[in-house]
């Protein structure tokens, strides 16, 4: 029997991978994918709890997260492409023009 805790452990694992990736990788595209991974880990948690508590709210929240993520992808990928055009091979650490 697959219990809810399995899903939660999976989600926690995915989230940790995403968070660690975001912190250690320097390629913007990879970092971007890590963010997506974290979002989906959260989605999985929502679904799990929604089913466990028999509450439709969990699934509804997932839809919101998906919509926001889609919007974020549009903006984020556009920025990544723009960066690659101007400065090919630039890492996230190179982009520090906003340093105070």
């Amino acid at each position: 029997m697959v219990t809810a805790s399995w899903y939660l452990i999976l989600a926690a694992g995915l989230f940790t991978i995403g968070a660690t990736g975001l912190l250690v990788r320097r390629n913007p595209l990879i970092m971007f994918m890590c963010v997506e991974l974290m979002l989906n880990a959260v989605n999985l948690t929502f679904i799990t709890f929604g089913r466990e508590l028999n509450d439709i709210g969990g699934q509804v929240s997932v839809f919101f997260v998906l919509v926001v993520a889609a919007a974020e992808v549009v903006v984020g990928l556009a920025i990544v492409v723009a960066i690659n055009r101007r400065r090919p091979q630039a890492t996230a650490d190179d982009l520090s023009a906003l340093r105070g």
Partner: protein
Amino acid sequence: MSTLVDLVWLIPAFPLAGVLILMALGRRLGEPRAGWLATAMMGGSFIATLLVFIGLVGHEGDERETVFTLFEWVPAGKLAVDIGFLADPLSVTMALFVTGVGALIHLYSIGYMHGDEGFSKFFIYLNLFAFSMLMLVLGDNLLLTFLGWEGVGACSYLLISFWFTDEANASAGKKAFVTNRVGDWGFLVAMLLAFLTFGSLQYGEIFFDLEQNGVAASTASAIVVLLLVGAAGKSAQFPLHIWLPDAMAGPTPVSALIHAATMVTAGVYLLTRMNPIIAASHDWVPDLIMWVGLGTALMAATIAVAQNDIKKVLAYSTVSQLGFMFVAVGSGAYVAAIFHMVTHAFFKALLFLGAGSVIHGMDGDQDIRRYGGLARLLPITSMTFVAGWLAIAGVPPFSGFWSKDEILAYAYGENKVLWLLLLITAILTAFYMTRLVLMTFFGSRRWTDEEVKAEGDEEADTETDEDALPHRHPHESPWTMTVPLVVLAGLAMVAGVFNLPFTSDVHFLGNWLKPSLFGNEGHLSFGGGTKWVLAIVAIIGSLGGVSAGAAVYIRRRIDPARIEHPFLARAWRVDEVVTNFMGGPGRRAFERTTQFDERVVDGAVNATGTLVRRTGTKLRASQTGLVRSYALGIAIGAVALLVWFITRAGL
């Protein structure tokens, strides 16, 4: 309930409509239609007041107080102020003579302002003034009264410097404005103190709270003294009287309406309105009001003796008569104060309008040394002026006698010295008014008409000699100017019947005003016999003043130069003292204050700015621009929150 009283909102609405229409169409209407419109609005307002008056008479004595609320104006927590009108005997009495005299002066202005460039503008200001004055009088709370108070102050400023291209007029307006500001400060602080004490600004609620809970005598005294500062500013009492004589720079109808009949009486009205608070204050407070009034009355009367400008004489006379009213308020004779206010409005408006008619006839010359022998050339003006003169001099049966005698009687009951000094003031009043009338209308002509040219004229108008008008040719004014004169002269003669002293039944004004005074009206401690003696002394005094004037200025028993002392002509040098003080110690004090402002107040503001900037510079370093370090910050924060939730919040 009678519906007539509910028309009270119409009273200020008419002049306001006049202002709005004239602002939109004034130039297109032009002369004289703009003036007629403004006059019609004042007439409408007067009729509305009459209707309210009739409605109020229909009520029982104790119910003659109606509050008509239009809408809520300032809803601010505990402070709730309505646009509400208070129709009670006091306010309606005021409104009656404000609109009545106002309408007559509007009519007069049509003739007086003939040919002026700013004809329609003048009537906008005049209507705006009437609106503000009516708000002042009819407002049912202190804030609304203050609104009117400021409104009349602004209109006064605009109208004094109406011919603003002349430097002197512009600075006279400024002087009036600044001096009034000192008084307004007093009113404003008094209003705040009243709100703190009584929790309301509405007259009815203030007086109710006063009756229920009482008030500390010291608080009441503070409120009244502050109100006195305000009243002294508006009603030109010492030491804030200095603006009124200069205010004569405005057109003469303005002097008649604002600076004689209506606005300057606002201070007396305010003090009368607040009579329960005066009654609740220390004993020295009414005495203070009384002595301020007496000092002003006596001082202004002595100054008026030595003035040569016809309007200046009348201006100082106004200051002096207002002093009489303050004496009446201080001695608890509110009815006498209002009575004198009404009769004064009639005869002083008459005198000013008469003076305007003379000035009109004399091509703008205001110096009585260059007048003389005008009686036959200006028959209506001189006849009506004589009526005003006898009224102000206190000759029975003219109106001024009755009101002044009542004030004198109360002063006698209060303090014998006060009475004596006030009597001297009354004698001086008769004296200087006699001087004015004799020098203007009688005696030798100190001007020439076309045929004859006397040497005396040379120094008088050297400048007009070069112009097209070398001589004076006095002429009677048009009917728009003489009709108000005749009506006011009639009123000045008979207004005494409003309040005859013989029995309490004919004490009409006293009985009428009773509900507004809450039993705070003073009572004479002596009987009819003493009253008769006092009245006879007053009559002898005024006749003595008149005959002394005649002896000096007709028979030349004494050289006038010996009476017209330069010290008096320069108004006791109050102006110089004020100027010297403000130029010397006053200026230094202000510079100190400025330094305080620059160092402490500005310093605090600038220091805050500097602090924020320096902190910001330090904190900039944390913004590395590295996305991953921000992400790390977020991650650590999230973990910290999580730890907190688990350990502290007991999840």
